[in-house]
C-alpha cells in the first residue's frame, strides 16, 4: 500500500501547485483512467491477461492527443521507458535482487512484490530502465526508474510552465473591460453606405472587440493606427471627429454610441 501513498503525495503536490497557477488542461483524460485501471489492479494483485496492452494503448493515445502541452512529451518518454521494461517482463516492473539486497531486502528472483508493480529479477537486458535508483531517507525508501524521474519532471513542467489560453483570455478581458462598459447596451450600427468609411471600419472593429473599444476610449488615434490585423487610415476630418467624441464620452458605451451616430450621420 506504500505505492498508493506515493501516488497520493504526487496528487497533493499537483494540487498545491494548481492552487497557485492554472496549467493547460489536457484532453481525453478518460484514456488516463483506462490506462491506470489495469495498473492499479496489478498493484492490488489482480492480473488479467491482455490488460497491460490496454494500459499501454490508452497511455499512448492520451500522450498523442496532448503532445502539444508542455511536459506531456516528457511524461510520454518516461511512460514509454517504464512500459518497455514492463512489457519485457510480462507487465511487471523489474527490480534487481542485488539492488534490493544492497538495501537490506532479501527476495527470491521471480517473486512478484506485494503492493507494487515489481518483479524481482536476477538480471535483465533492460535493467537500465528498471527500478534501480534508490531514494533513501529516514522516513521511507523508494526505488525508482529513469522513466519515473522523467514522468515527475514532465508533470512538474506541465504544472509550472504550460499556459492556459482560456484563463489568460479571461484575464485580459477583465483587465480591459470596465463595469460601465459591461452593463451598458451597445448601440447597433445602421446598415447601408456611410459617408465615413474609415470610422465605419473602426466602429465595426470596436463593436467586435471590447478591448479595442476600451483602447479607443483612452487613445483613439494610437488604437486606430496600431490594430494588429486591420489598418485604419484616418483623415483629418476623422481625427477631429474622434477627438470630439473622446472629449464627450466617459465610458466605452458612450464612445461607441457617439461613433455609431457619426458613422450613420444621425
Amino acid at each position, binding site marked *: 500500500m506504500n505505492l498508493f501513498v506515493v501516488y497520493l503525495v504526487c496528487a497533493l503536490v499537483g494540487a498545491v501547485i494548481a492552487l497557485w497557477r492554472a496549467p493547460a488542461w489536457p484532453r481525453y483524460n478518460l484514456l488516463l483512467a483506462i490506462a491506470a485501471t489495469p495498473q492499479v489492479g496489478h498493484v492490488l494483485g489482480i492480473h488479467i491477461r491482455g490488460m497491460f496492452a490496454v494500459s499501454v494503448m490508452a497511455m499512448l493515445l492520451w500522450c498523442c492527443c496532448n503532445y502539444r502541452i508542455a511536459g506531456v512529451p516528457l511524461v510520454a518518454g*518516461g511512460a514509454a521507458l517504464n512500459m518497455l521494461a514492463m512489457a519485457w517482463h510480462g507487465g511487471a516492473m523489474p*527490480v534487481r535482487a542485488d539492488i534490493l539486497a544492497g538495501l537490506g531486502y532479501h527476495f527470491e528472483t521471480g517473486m512478484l512484490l506485494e503492493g507494487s508493480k515489481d518483479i524481482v529479477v536476477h538480471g535483465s537486458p533492460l535493467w537500465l530502465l528498471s527500478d534501480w535508483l534508490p531514494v533513501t531517507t529516514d522516513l*521511507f525508501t523508494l526505488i525508482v526508474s529513469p522513466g519515473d524521474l522523467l514522468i515527475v519532471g514532465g508533470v512538474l513542467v506541465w504544472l509550472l510552465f504550460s499556459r492556459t489560453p482560456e484563463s489568460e483570455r479571461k484575464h485580459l478581458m477583465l483587465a480591459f473591460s470596465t463595469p460601465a462598459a459591461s452593463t451598458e447596451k451597445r448601440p447597433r450600427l445602421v446598415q447601408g453606405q456611410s459617408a465615413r468609411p474609415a470610422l465605419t471600419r473602426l466602429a465595426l472593429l470596436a463593436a467586435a472587440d471590447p478591448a479595442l473599444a476600451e483602447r479607443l476610449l483612452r487613445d483613439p488615434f494610437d488604437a486606430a493606427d496600431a490594430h494588429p490585423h486591420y489598418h485604419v487610415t484616418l483623415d483629418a476630418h476623422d481625427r477631429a471627429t474622434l477627438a470630439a467624441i473622446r472629449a464627450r464620452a466617459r465610458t466605452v458605451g458612450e464612445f461607441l454610441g457617439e461613433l455609431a451616430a457619426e458613422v450613420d450621420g444621425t
Partner: protein
Amino acid sequence: MRSKILRALAAALLVGTIAAAAMAPLAPPPIRGPSTTIVNR
C-alpha cells in the same frame, strides 16, 4: 477561490492518475530493527 479549489482537486486527480498509469516505483516497507523483546530462558 472556489474555482481555484476545483482546479486543485482536478489537478490532484489528474496527477494521481498519471502516476498510477505510468509510474512504477518500488516502495518497500521499512526494515524493522533488531527485536527488543527480552526472552527469559
